[in-house]
C-alpha cells in the first residue's frame, strides 16, 4: 500500500513542480536556519568533561571586608593566594588543584625559530588526573615537585609538533623566559570547550600549550593573565609583583566522588570561613558556594546571549516556513477534491486517503530535510567564517544530523496533518456532481 501511496504522491508532486519546489524550499530554509543555530547552541553549551563534570566542583569563599556587603551577595569568583594555598594544603577533597593562567616566551634551541609566546597554565599536580587529561608521552608532576618549585613542564601535542616534530620529547630541556625547564609530559589533543576551569581567558577555543607548577611561576615571576579583583588597599600587581593579599586571582577546583562528600566539603568551607573570621582575617559571616562544572558554567552565563537570540529567531523563521507550507498544502489538497472524491466513491476509506496525503507531505519533508541539511552545512560554514572565538567550533555532528532529519520529517508531517484532515472531510457525492 505504501509503495502505491508513494507513487501517487510523486505523481501529484510532479504535476505541480513550481508549487512542490516552493514547499521544499520553504522547509529547507526553515530547517537549515534552525539547525545552524541549534548546532552552534549545542556545541557552545556542551559538557567540557563528559562523564566527569558532575564530580568536579568549584569552591568559593568570601574573604572581602565588610564594605559593600549585603545579604545573599555572591562571594568573589576567584580565591586569594592565602585561601588557595590553605584549601590546597587542607587536602579535604579527593583531588584538588589551584591555578591561574599566563603567557610565557619559548626560546627554541633551533636557531631557525624566533622566540615566541604561548599560553600557559600555572597549576598544581592534581590538575592532570582530576581533569583526566590524555598524555601522549610521560605524565604530570607530583605534589612534591609543587613544593620544590620544580622546573618541570608539560607541553601540548601542538607545541611538541612544532618544536620536536612530534617525537617523544620527555626528558629533554626547554628554555622558557630565560630558565631551563625539563619536559616531563606531552599531552595528547585536549581542549575542553567551554574553557571551564578559567573563563577569564575567553570561554571557547582557548588551549594552553605549556603547563607548569604554580609555585615555580611565583618563584620566577612569570607573566600572569586573567582577572584580578581587589578591595581595601589591595593593588592588582604588575610585571614582577604579585597581586596583594586582598586580591582574588586564582581558580581552585576539587574532585568529590559522591554527593555525601560534596555536602561534607561545603561544611568544611563554612568551618574554614568561621576559623578565618575567628583569626581576624575574614570580616563577613561564612558565605560559601560549591558548584559543579555545569552549574558553574550556567552561573557564569557562558553561552553568549546572541547565540540564544539567534536560535529563537531561527525557530521563529521555521514556524513561518511551516505555516507557509501548511497553507500551500491545504490549497493543493483542496484543489484535488474531485480526485479525492472519486477515490472515496470507489471505496477508499477516510484513513486510506489520510495516509496517502500524509505520505505526500512526508516526501516533501524528506526532500526538504535533505535540502535543510545542505543549507545547515552552508550556514555553519558561514558561521566559521566569522571572527568570534567560538566560530571554529561550529561543525555538524552525527547526533545533530539525525536531529535535522527528525525535525524536518516531524515538522512537515505536522504541517501535513491539518490539510490532510481537512481534505478528508470532503463529501464524495458533492465532488462527483461537479465532474
Amino acid at each position, binding site marked *: 500500500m505504501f509503495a502505491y501511496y508513494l507513487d501517487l504522491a510523486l505523481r501529484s508532486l510532479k504535476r505541480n513542480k513550481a508549487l512542490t519546489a516552493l514547499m521544499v524550499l520553504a522547509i529547507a530554509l526553515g530547517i537549515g536556519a534552525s539547525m545552524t543555530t541549534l548546532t552552534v547552541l549545542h556545541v557552545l553549551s556542551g559538557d567540557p568533561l563528559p562523564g566527569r563534570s558532575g564530580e568536579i566542583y568549584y569552591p568559593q569563599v568570601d574573604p572581602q571586608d565588610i564594605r559593600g556587603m549585603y545579604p545573599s551577595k555572591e562571594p568573589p569568583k576567584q580565591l586569594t593566594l592565602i585561601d588557595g594555598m590553605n584549601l590546597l594544603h587542607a587536602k579535604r577533597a579527593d583531588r584538588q588543584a589551584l591555578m591561574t593562567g599566563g603567557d610565557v616566551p619559548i626560546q627554541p634551541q633551533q636557531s631557525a625559530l624566533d622566540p615566541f609566546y604561548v599560553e600557559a597554565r600555572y597549576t598544581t599536580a592534581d590538575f592532570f588526573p582530576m581533569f583526566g587529561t590524555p598524555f601522549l608521552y610521560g605524565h604530570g608532576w607530583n605534589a612534591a615537585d609543587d613544593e620544590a618549585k620544580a622546573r618541570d613542564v608539560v607541553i601540548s601535542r601542538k607545541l611538541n609538533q612544532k618544536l620536536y616534530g612530534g617525537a617523544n620529547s620527555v626528558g629533554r630541556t626547554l628554555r622558557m623566559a630565560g630558565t631551563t625547564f625539563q619536559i616531563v609530559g606531552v599531552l595528547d589533543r585536549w581542549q575542553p570547550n567551554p574553557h571551564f576551569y578559567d573563563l577569564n581567558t575567553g570561554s571557547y577555543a582557548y588551549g594552553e600549550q605549556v603547563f607548569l607548577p604554580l609555585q615555580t611561576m611565583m618563584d620566577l615571576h612569570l607573566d600572569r593573565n586573567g582577572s584580578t579583583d581587589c578591595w581595601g588597599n589591595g593593588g592588582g600587581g604588575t610585571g614582577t609583583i604579585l597581586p596583594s593579599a586582598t586580591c582574588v586571582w586564582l581558580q581552585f577546583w576539587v574532585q568529590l566522588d559522591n554527593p555525601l562528600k560534596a555536602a561534607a566539603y561545603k561544611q568544611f568551607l563554612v568551618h574554614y570561613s568561621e576559623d578565618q573570621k575567628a583569626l581576624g582575617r575574614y570580616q563577613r559571616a561564612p558565605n560559601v558556594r560549591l558548584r559543579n562544572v555545569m552549574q558553574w558554567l550556567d552561573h557564569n552565563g557562558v553561552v553568549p546571549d546572541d547565540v540564544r537570540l539567534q536560535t529563537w529567531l531561527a525557530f521563529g523563521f521555521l514556524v513561518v*516556513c511551516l505555516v507557509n507550507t501548511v497553507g500551500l498544502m491545504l490549497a493543493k489538497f483542496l484543489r484535488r477534491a474531485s480526485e479525492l472524491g472519486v477515490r472515496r466513491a470507489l471505496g477508499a476509506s477516510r484513513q486510506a486517503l489520510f495516509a496517502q496525503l500524509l505520505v505526500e507531505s512526508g516526501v516533501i519533508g524528506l526532500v526538504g530535510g535533505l535540502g535543510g541539511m545542505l543549507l545547515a552545512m552552508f550556514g555553519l560554514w558561514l558561521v566559521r567564517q566569522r571572527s*568570534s572565538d567560538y566560530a571554529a567550533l561550529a561543525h555538524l555532528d552525527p547526533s545533530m544530523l539525525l536531529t535535522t532529519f527528525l525535525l524536518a520529517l516531524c515538522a512537515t508531517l505536522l504541517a501535513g496533518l491539518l490539510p490532510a484532515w481537512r481534505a478528508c472531510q470532503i463529501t464524495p457525492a458533492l465532488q462527483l456532481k461537479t465532474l
Partner: protein
Amino acid sequence: MDILPILSTLRRHKLTAWLLILEIALTCAIVCNAVFLIGQRLQRMDMPSGVAEHELLQIQVADVVKNGNPYARVQEDLAVLRQVPGVQSVAFSNQVPFGASSSNGNVLLDPNQPQRTLNATTYFGENLVPTMGTRLVAGRDLRPDDFVDVDTALKGLRNGDSKSLPHVTLITRTLAERLWPGQNPLGRLIYLTPTVGLRVVGVLASLVRPNAYDAATAQYTMVIPLRMGADKGMSYVIRTLPQDRARVLAASLAALKKADPQRVVTTQRTFDEVRRRFFRDDRAMAGMLVGVIAALLIVTALGIVGLASFWVAQRRRTIGVRRALGATRANILHYFQTENFVLATLGIALGMVLAYGINLFLMTHYELPRLPAVYFPVGAVALWLIGQLAVLGPALRAAAVPPVVATRSV
C-alpha cells in the same frame, strides 16, 4: 471597490485565509523586532571613542627575558619611536579605547561610604591626552611632576604611605556630570580606596573605556598620573596622519626590533582594527538579522504568490462569469489586490500585538529596551508592499481570463 463580496468569498476559504493571515502576522512581528535589533547594534557600533581613531596605532611588545630597568626601557623605546619619520606623538598606556582588556576601580565620594558610587576605568601613562587626541574642556592636563612610578605607588599603598601615591586625576565630562550633576568638578576629590584621594584637575570631552559593553557606563573614565615599566600588557600608542599609518607602523616595528632584536611583537594594529574587532559580534549579529529579514520576506512573498495563484486558478470560471457580466479587467485586478490588502491588514494588526509580545519576552530575557512605536509602521509598510508585489502576478493572470471561459464546461 466593494469589499463585501471579498469578505464573503474569504469566509468560504476560512482556513486558508487564516493561515495566510497568521503567516503575515508572524513575519510582521519578527521583522519589527529584527529591524529594531539591527538599529540597536548599529547604534552600538557607532559608539564614540573620543580619540582620533583614524590617526592612531597600537603596538605591544614583550621581552623574552626581563633585564634592566623597565622604566628606563620605556623611555628608550619612546625616544626611538619619536625618531620614526611621520610619528607625531607617542604615549605608553596601560590600556586603549575598545581594547577589551581593562583596569578598573571603584569610585567613592566619601572614604567611609559603605557601597561604591560606581565603577570607572583607569588609564595610566604620560602624554596620553595629546597623543590620543582627546579634548580637554576644563582645567589642565597632567604634568610630568604629577606622575608616580607604579611600583612606588603599590609599595606606598601597602605601607599606607600616601606621599608616594598620585594626587590628581582627569575625568570625562560624563563622569563629572554623573558624580556632581550641574556642579564644577574641578578641585573635588575621588577616592579609589579609603586612603587614596585624587583631586580632579581636568575634564575631558570624551574617552571611552576599553570594556565599553554597556553604553550607559562607557564614558566612566579616569586618567591617573602613574608611570609604568615595560610590560607585556602595556601598549605604545602612536599618532600619525591617516595616510601614513601603514608605513609608520612598519617603520616603528622595525625601529623597536632594531633597538632590541630579542623581543617579540604581540600586537600591531591600527585603531580602526581595534574598533572592528571589538564590535565584531555586533556586526555578525546585524548581518544575520538582515539575512533573516530577507529570507522571511521572500518566503512570505512566495507563499502569497502560491496561494493567490491557486485561488485564481480555482476561480477561473467565476472570473469568466464576472467578465461576461461586464466587469472590466481593472475590476478583476483590483478585486485580487483588495483581497490581499484586506488579508495583509488583518495580518499586520495581529502582527503588531505579536511584535509587542516578542519584545516583552526579549526585554525580560535579554535586557533589551522597549520597542519604540516608530518600528511598528516599518513592519506594516514592508508587509503591505510585499503583499501587493506578490499578488500582482497572479492578479494580472486573473485579469487576463477571457469572458468566454464562462461559457465553457457549463
